[in-house]
Every structure is written in structure tokens, then in C-alpha cells.
């Protein structure tokens, strides 16, 4: 029973991270209608950048981390301006393929620069584990949960009250109308990529601190898809809920598997079965809006 509870807590924490990544995926999709298959590489690049600053330059975490975020922000903007801007108006298959191309490019680049083996982060917290309700939980997980909730709250505030957030919502709703109201759509696109890259990098650093940094991080970008399909593509709240569900589902599948089935590897693969099942019943995801099209 204890194991089940432990897995549930794990699922909740990992799920919150999935939620954060899914949220930043949805942010890009909402603002610029681009499906970003390179989301996982944002995590990877962010984590490696932070790792490099912390180990190679021996910077303390509170300096290295903001530099990483600033770097990721610039990186997101540059990526959008250089690669994705020429693709505006192209068919969806082309846009998907460009992001897939970016994804394998950056994955290989990171492997080339930093090697294929997982590298541990220097210790950041004084005590690696802490006791929550009688369970041993890694400190970084608790901190990550707090960070996730902060990011989510930040997103909520950003979209509701800030000028840029409102401009993004307007652009997502109707690009032409937004433009005619004086919103710089280009700026919105660039900002959405910058924020998305930054937020993903936070998640990347958190996962990197727990598991070490390796190319396995980019698998997070793929786990985002079940989460997004569960929660609906155009809903930020849905993405968070979807992420939590996927996190819990994985750990539940792992529990069921380890207790009774003994298939092995269910942790990785269960979300994809659920994904196919959902798409069979509801082709636009659980909460996605059905496109109404005219000839």
C-alpha cells in the first residue's frame, strides 16, 4: 500500500512537470498555430545550458539559473524568427516536419557537445530528501511541485491581466482582428516562443537535477502529446489537467504492472495506448473543440 501511495505522489509531481511542459506547448500552439515537436529539446537545451554553467564555470545556482533562462528566452526568439517565421502560411504537414527537423538537429547537437551519457547536476539543496506526511520525497521534487504551481499561477495571471497576455489571447482568437487593433502579431509569436522555451527550461533543469542530464530528457516532449490530447489542444488549464492525468496514469500502470501483470515497460508505453483509445472515441481529444469547416 505504501508503494501505491509513493507512486501516486510521484505521479502527481511528475504529472505537474508534464503539465508545465504541456502548458508551454499549448502556449505556442495557441498563439502561432504551430505544433512544436521540438518541445522536449527545449528541456534538453535548458538543462544542458544550466549544467554547463554550473559545472564548467562553477557558478552558483542562483546566478547560473537566471542566465539559463535569459539564454533560453533569446534562443526561443531567434528560433522563431529564423526558422519558423518563413513557415507562416505553409500547410500543417510542412510546419510539423520543420519542428521535427529541429528536434533531431538539436538532439544530435546536444549529444555531440555533451556526450551520450547522463551527467549529474552538482547538488543544489542541502538535504537531498525530505519527509512529507511520512514519505521520503526528494527535496527537488517538492521544490519542483512548488515551482510548477507558481508557473501555473503565473500563467493564469499573465493571460488574465498583463498586456502581453491579453494580446496573445487576442491573437489566438483571431490574428487579423488582433493585428487591426494594433497588436504586433510578430512580437506575440516571438514572445510565445520565448516564454515557452523559458518555462520548458525550468522543467528541464528540475528533471535534470533529479535524474541527471541526458538525451532522455527530450522524451518529455513526446510525453506531452498524450497530455495535450487528454486536455485539449487549445486549453491551458486542460494541458495542466492532462499532464497530471498522464503522470498519475504512468505510475498507476507501473504499479499494476509490477504487482500483477509483469509485462515490463508499461510505465513508458501505457499513455500511448490510452492516447489511441481516446482518439478512437473522440478524434479531437477529450476537451478539444471540434473544427467546423466550410468549403
Amino acid at each position: 500500500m505504501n508503494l501505491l501511495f509513493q507512486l501516486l505522489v510521484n505521479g502527481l509531481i511528475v504529472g505537474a512537470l508534464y503539465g508545465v511542459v504541456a502548458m508551454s506547448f499549448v502556449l505556442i500552439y495557441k498563439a502561432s498555430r504551430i505544433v512544436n515537436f521540438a518541445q522536449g529539446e527545449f528541456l534538453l537545451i535548458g538543462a544542458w545550458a544550466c549544467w554547463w554553467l554550473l559545472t564548467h564555470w562553477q557558478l552558483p545556482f542562483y546566478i547560473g539559473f537566471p542566465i539559463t533562462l535569459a539564454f533560453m528566452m533569446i534562443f526561443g526568439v531567434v528560433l522563431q524568427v529564423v526558422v519558423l517565421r518563413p513557415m507562416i502560411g505553409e500547410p500543417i504537414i510542412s510546419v510539423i516536419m520543420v519542428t521535427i527537423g529541429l528536434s533531431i538537429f538539436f538532439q544530435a547537437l546536444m549529444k555531440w557537445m555533451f556526450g551520450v551519457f547522463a551527467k549529474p547536476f552538482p547538488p543544489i539543496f542541502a538535504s537531498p530528501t525530505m519527509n512529507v506526511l511520512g514519505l521520503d520525497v526528494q527535496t527537488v521534487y517538492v521544490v519542483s511541485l512548488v515551482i510548477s504551481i507558481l508557473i501555473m499561477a503565473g500563467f493564469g495571471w499573465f493571460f488574465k491581466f498583463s498586456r502581453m497576455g491579453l494580446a496573445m489571447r487576442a491573437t489566438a482568437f483571431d490574428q487579423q482582428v488582433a493585428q487591426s487593433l494594433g497588436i504586433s502579431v510578430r512580437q506575440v509569436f516571438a514572445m510565445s516562443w520565448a516564454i515557452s522555451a523559458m518555462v520548458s527550461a525550468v522543467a528541464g533543469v528540475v528533471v535534470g537535477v533529479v535524474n541527471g542530464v541526458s538525451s532522455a530528457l527530450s522524451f518529455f516532449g513526446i510525453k506531452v502529446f498524450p497530455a495535450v490530447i487528454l486536455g485539449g489542444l487549445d486549453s491551458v488549464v486542460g494541458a495542466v489537467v492532462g499532464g497530471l492525468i498522464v503522470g498519475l496514469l504512468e505510475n498507476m500502470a507501473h504499479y499494476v504492472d509490477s504487482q500483477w501483470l509483469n509485462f515490463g515497460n508499461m510505465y513508458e508505453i501505457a499513455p500511448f495506448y490510452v492516447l489511441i483509445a481516446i482518439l478512437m472515441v473522440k478524434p479531437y481529444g477529450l476537451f478539444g473543440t471540434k473544427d467546423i469547416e466550410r468549403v
Partner: protein
Amino acid sequence: MTTTSMIPCGDFKTRYATDTTIFPTVTSRNFAILGIVLLAVAPAFLDRYWLNLLIQIGYLGIAALGLNILVGFTGQISIGHSAFFGFGAFASAWINNRFGIPVALAIPLAGVLTTAVGMIFGVPAARLKGLYLAIATLAAQYILQDFFARANWFTGGVAGTIAEPFSLFGFVFDTDGRYFYVVLFYMVVMYLLATNLMRTRDGRALVAVRDHYLSAEMMGINLTKYRTMSFGISAFYAGIGGALYAHYLQFVSVEGFTILFSIQFLGMIIIGGLGSIMGSLMGTAFMVLLPELMQASTDLLSGTAVDRMLNLKDSIAFLREMAIGVVIILFLVFEPDGLAHRWKQIKAYWKLYPFSH
């Protein structure tokens, strides 16, 4: 993508028959026949290295054509093609090893079996499009990959499986020079089949689904049927390609059929040209020759300052992956219609030479 059917100026057609011929001119037919004849005598002149490359282009080209029928002609994206390719490879070896059916029959049977699997994943896919379809096929990729690692009875698990060499009436095609003909035969047949498919009612229905699926549906085209069918055909081609791969290497391991391989297939058809049959072959050739070219250039650079700085020998694997990504992006940004379109333009230029507009 619609621009691939663009007709150069000065090329007028007055009858439907001329619009649907395989070869628009006598010269193009003669060139095609000449090409096949040249390939048929090639093993006498080429060494193992080049034959190996040609065989690779052959079986990968068949699978890439299948993907092009799905993506380029029907407009359905798939990020799980290598899983079907792998399934075909295992299926052929399994049919041959388990039931003792000769390899010559096992290859088409593997194609049929892969079609069945493709249809299963095609059922949810028939209702999906765009992003949702991309994600569903991504899931198919991971599910099949997981299945390969799990199904010991089918794939031999981690140890992989042995595939017998191709033989016909006691004659064993076990050298590169001999196996080349098997691949060539399959390639010609499969490419002819695809070309003919696009001239039929079903082929035109597929293109209509791609161009505007709502209008197509209003014209009485059964979307579910054609989308599932397209998935089936694409899986069939992947299966045949995979089976040829298995009996060429005579060993299939579970590790090869990753998502990167799927992306490589997508890269082939993007480079070659979506919605172009010969483009699939050109793109495959490009994708197969790209690493060889990179290897050759690293060999040239070895010992120089660049080599010392980048440590080329150890990093060639990563550089290859990066090159695949870069090439896909560059083609999508600068030449979205691929090599086939470029080739068409070159042809049109010479055809209409002094007055090309």
C-alpha cells in the same frame, strides 16, 4: 503541395488519355527503359560498395514510396513508418522460419500481414487529420517498437531473428550482385503499381482527399474508406521494403526501427517531393548518399585543423543526424516541392529553351 501537379507553360493536353499516360513522351519512356537496362547490367561493372548502396536505395525507396502515397498523395501524415518497415522485416523472417514458406512467397505475405497491421492503426487514423493524426501515428510507432521488444515468439526479442537468404528454384540470391536483381525486380514492379494506381479512380480519389477533403466527401468519395486504404497501401509498401531489407541483411534486430528512422523516411519524401513517384526514389537516393558523402568528406578532412578541432571521426554519427535535420528544414524552407519539382523545371527549361515563358 498542390503545386507538384503544376504543368509547365507550353505543355497543352487535348485529350484525357494524354493526361493519364505514364510517360508523357516517347523519349521519357525510352529513357526509363534505358535506365532499367543500365541498372540490370550494373552488377557486372560495380563493386560491392556501390551495389550495397543501390540495394539500400531500392528497398528504402519502396518503403518511401509507400509513405509518399500516404503523405504526398492522400495528405495524411505518419510518423510511424519505420515501425511498419520493421514489422514487414520481422513478418517475412517469421513466416519463413515458422511455417517453412519459401522466401519468395514470404515477402509478399509479409506485405499483406503488414497491411493488416497498418489497417488496424488506420482505423483511428481515418477519422483524424493534421496534428491529431501525427500524434496517433507517433503512438503507433512507440507501441509497435514496444511490441518488437516484447514479442519473443515473433521477433526473437533482444537477440533478434535470422532471416534466410532469398532463393528461387534452388538458386540462392545470397551475394550483393545476385540480390540486386531481386530488389530491382520488386522496385520496378512496385513503382509501376504505384504509377498505375494514380491513374485509376482510386488514385484520383486519394488526391481529391488530399486537396480538399470536404469537397471530396461531397462529391461522393468515402473518406473513411480511402484514408484507411491509403494507410493499408502505405503499410504494404513498407512491409515489402522491410522484408527485402531482412533477407538482404539476413538478420533483423529489434533496435533499428526507431523514430529517427521514421523521420528519415519523411525526410526522403520531402527532399524528393511530396506527391511525386519518381521523387520518392530521388529523395531516397539523396538520403542514402548523404551519409556516404559526409563520410567521404570527413576522410578528406582527416588530419587537418578542422578535424582536430571538431574531432570528426568520433562525432560523425551525430553530424549525420544533424545533417538529416538541417536538410529537412532547408528543403522545407527553400524548396518545399523537392527534387522532383527542380528536375521538372530543368526539363521544362530545355524543352522550351529559347522562349521559356
